[in-house]
């Protein structure tokens, strides 16, 4: 599915020492999520934004059984993997690779890093949780070794139940992530300035 070109911005990959992989939401685009990067403190980063075919990473809710989101889901994870590989090929190590996603892109962000847990620079999920009708710990492997992870979400959120956010935090913590979870009452399905500020103070410092 998602063999679309990777959009880049920020510092050239060849000379950057850090990379931020940005994953857009359902119906969004690399341009949308790259515009968000202006608000986080990443002036020295190469910015890599994979694109979903027809702007959707997978067709059904992230709470559906994973098979119902195939083959899109596997292809979406592969697209993230290719962005990681591209950064690594340019000499940027995983400790200097960061992730940021919104909504469907946040779910994909968390799912990718949990399946490939290792010491990353940091992970920001604006409204999202791990993917599946239930969380199967056997799916995830590795050790985050203290990677800072921020999940911000609204209570309630029409798409992302708070219980799933809490369960995701627990699982990511179990994999060695230093997870900060913030639940904002009645924020709506959006990204708030407060979340941006938290991301800047915890992840992009």
């Amino acid at each position: 599915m998602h063999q679309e070109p990777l959009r880049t911005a920020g510092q050239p990959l060849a000379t950057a020492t850090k990379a931020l992989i940005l994953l857009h939401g359902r119906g969004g685009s690399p341009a949308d999520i790259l515009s968000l990067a202006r608000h986080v403190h990443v002036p020295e980063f190469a910015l890599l934004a994979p694109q979903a075919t027809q702007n959707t990473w997978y067709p059904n809710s992230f709470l559906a059984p994973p098979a119902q989101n195939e083959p899109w889901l596997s292809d979406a994870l592969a697209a993230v993997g290719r962005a990681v590989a591209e950064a690594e090929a340019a000499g940027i190590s995983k400790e200097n690779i960061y992730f940021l996603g919104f909504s469907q892109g946040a779910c994909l962000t968390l799912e990718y890093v949990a399946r490939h847990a290792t010491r990353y620079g940091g992970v920001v999920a604006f409204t999202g949780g791990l993917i599946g009708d239930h969380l199967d710990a056997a799916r995830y492997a590795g050790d985050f070794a203290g990677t800072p992870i921020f999940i911000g979400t609204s209570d309630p959120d029409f798409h992302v139940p708070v219980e799933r956010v809490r369960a995701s935090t627990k699982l990511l913590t179990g994999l060695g992530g230093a997870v900060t979870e913030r639940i904002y009452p009645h924020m709506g399905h959006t990204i708030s300035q407060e979340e941006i500020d938290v991301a800047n103070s915890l992840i992009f410092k």
Partner: protein
Amino acid sequence: MEPRILGLHHVTAIAGNAQRNHKFYTKVLGLRFLKKTVNFDDPGTYHFYFGDETGSAGTILTFFPWEHITTGRRGIGQATEIGYSVPAGSFDFWMQRFEQHGVTYNKPSEKFGERYLTFLDPDGLKLELIESKTADSRTPWTTADVGADVATKGFHTVTLTLASIQPTAEILTDVFGYTLLEQHVNRYRYATDTVQGAAYIDLVEVPGEARSVTAGGSVHHIAFRVKDDEAELYFRNKLLEKGLQPTPQIDRDYFHSVYFREPGGVLFEIATENPGFTVDEPLAELGTHLMLPKQHERLRARLETSLPPIG
């Protein structure tokens, strides 16, 4: 000499139940099971390869079986039919076999002066057996039930359904060196003269048709064959010059791949002949072991118990 595209390399489609998929292609259709590996991007599921004895390019059909996957829909922007070359006079055998195994099929028909027999696999994937009017001397894989007089020899044609054929046709002709061979109503046959089998791509233009949904029973992508890495990078450059955006070269263990979405919406791949399927298993043992790419080898103990048994 400039590198050439050597017809099709493989076709990758999506299945539901793994055991049912394996049984259909090995037992009913009589293909060789070439490789039991996992989806590199989702190692909890299989990736199956079926083809001739060695897994020659142009014979390889691969599947991602996802249990409980939703069913796709044939339509615009998709490879909608996969045609296998079979010996003339084999249709009676095949129709009888399809009856025996409860396979859905149509009565034989004809296009471009060749008889063909359409049938569906258990997930609804549309396949054809085609009596090629040109010579096809490829040696088929045979089984106890499916002898050389009836066995499939590899691909003949893959059909793409498109809203407009022009942009896709330009990729085939200007980049891949195919030529328009024949046209009948809204079906256009493109051919390469570089290989004897798997040399045709049919483009069918149906502007009013609904867009396809790629899921169970549909083709995920089609791969074109090149000799080696050098040829692959040559075509990657040509695609870049044409304003397309191919991926970097990706190592798929059995071949090296570059993907791009052609303007009609179908996912195309260019795949190398090297290193082939014997890179991790001897020829006689192809398909008998669970082969894992090195990045997933650490999961072996878990996968050996969690993946459904096949056979």
